[in-house]
């Protein structure tokens, strides 16, 4: 693949991610502000965005720190919350299987809800996606740069406006996810998957450490598979 094709995929990845990245801006700023108001130092706050680079985990760690939770409990919670990334990575396995490890490392490090949403949207319905890693890295690097910058802005704002974390700015992320999920609800199985996820989440929200989220995701996927005609067809073909 030519350098030009690579850079155009890289740019397209960044561009396709821009609505979600814009939505992540308030999120990053709130993180920075929240972290320093709960007593994390400015450098540690920035380091968390640079090395951990996982919004949900960062928020949970800081929230638990504020309530003086023990380190092992924080770490266990972070790990459980991150298990959804394992599902994300697993669903992209066919796309990375021919890539050298030097690409898989940065792609794994930069795998977020946003980049996964955009990349899986890009892959959906296509048989082959050459140079997908450049698209992925474009999305991821744009997200990383903005996240780090917003953390710094948040640290500064947190010193000026202490109650900024109560403004509810995280709503931007939610409407961004709506914009990814809803246009991809095409089959009956897709709708059933979304409806099950919603219903099950409402039944399990009081479970500790986001275990309800994981349980609901698995349940929703199982329901979708049971209703999915394409799988039934391929299973029948295998029997013949």
């Amino acid at each position, binding site marked *: 693949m030519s350098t030009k094709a690579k850079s155009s995929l890289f740019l397209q990845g960044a561009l396709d991610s821009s609505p979600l990245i814009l939505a992540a801006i308030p999120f990053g700023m709130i993180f920075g502000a929240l972290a320093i108001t709960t007593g994390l130092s400015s450098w540690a706050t920035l380091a968390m965005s640079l090395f951990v680079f996982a919004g949900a985990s960062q928020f949970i760690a800081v929230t638990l720190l504020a309530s003086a939770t023990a380190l092992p409990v924080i770490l266990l919670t972070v790990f459980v919350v991150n298990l959804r990334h394992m599902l994300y990575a697993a669903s992209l*396995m066919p796309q990375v299987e021919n890539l050298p490890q030097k690409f898989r490392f940065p792609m794994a490090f930069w795998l977020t809800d946003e980049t996964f949403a955009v990349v899986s949207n890009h892959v959906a319905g296509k048989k082959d996606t050459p140079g997908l890693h450049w698209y992925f890295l474009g999305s991821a690097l744009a997200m990383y740069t903005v996240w780090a910058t917003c953390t710094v802005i948040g640290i500064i704002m947190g010193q000026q406006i202490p109650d900024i974390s109560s403004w509810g700015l995280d709503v931007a992320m939610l409407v961004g996810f709506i914009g990814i999920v809803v246009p991809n609800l095409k089959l009956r199985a897709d709708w059933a998957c979304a409806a099950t996820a919603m219903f099950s*989440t409402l039944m399990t929200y009081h479970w500790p450490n986001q275990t309800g989220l994981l349980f609901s995701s698995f349940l*929703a996927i199982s329901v979708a598979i049971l209703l999915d005609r394409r799988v039934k067809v391929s299973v029948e073909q295998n029997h013949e």
Partner: protein
Amino acid sequence: MNEWLLIAAMTVLTFTPRYLPFGMAGKVKIPPILERALTFVPIAVLTSIITQSSLIRHGELALNLANHHLLAVLAAFATALISRQLFIIVTVGLAAFIMAKWLL
């Protein structure tokens, strides 16, 4: 608590689940039904996250007009049924949130 120890441990615990499937890709063959199941991951996980953060506020089910997150999500949902443009969906959702904050 040592904040640097926390960050180092979190880095490992975040990277590992992200990397494991990528590292194994190509070495293990995923059965077709599992591969198909994984295509439902975005819908399942993202819907669960949306539900958790919009229908449930402060640890309780909040089906009322005071829940501005829910109003924003509903506005974004209605828009997404008409337009597939992510930017438009996000803009309408945010506009609904700001209006709800001001008017309600």
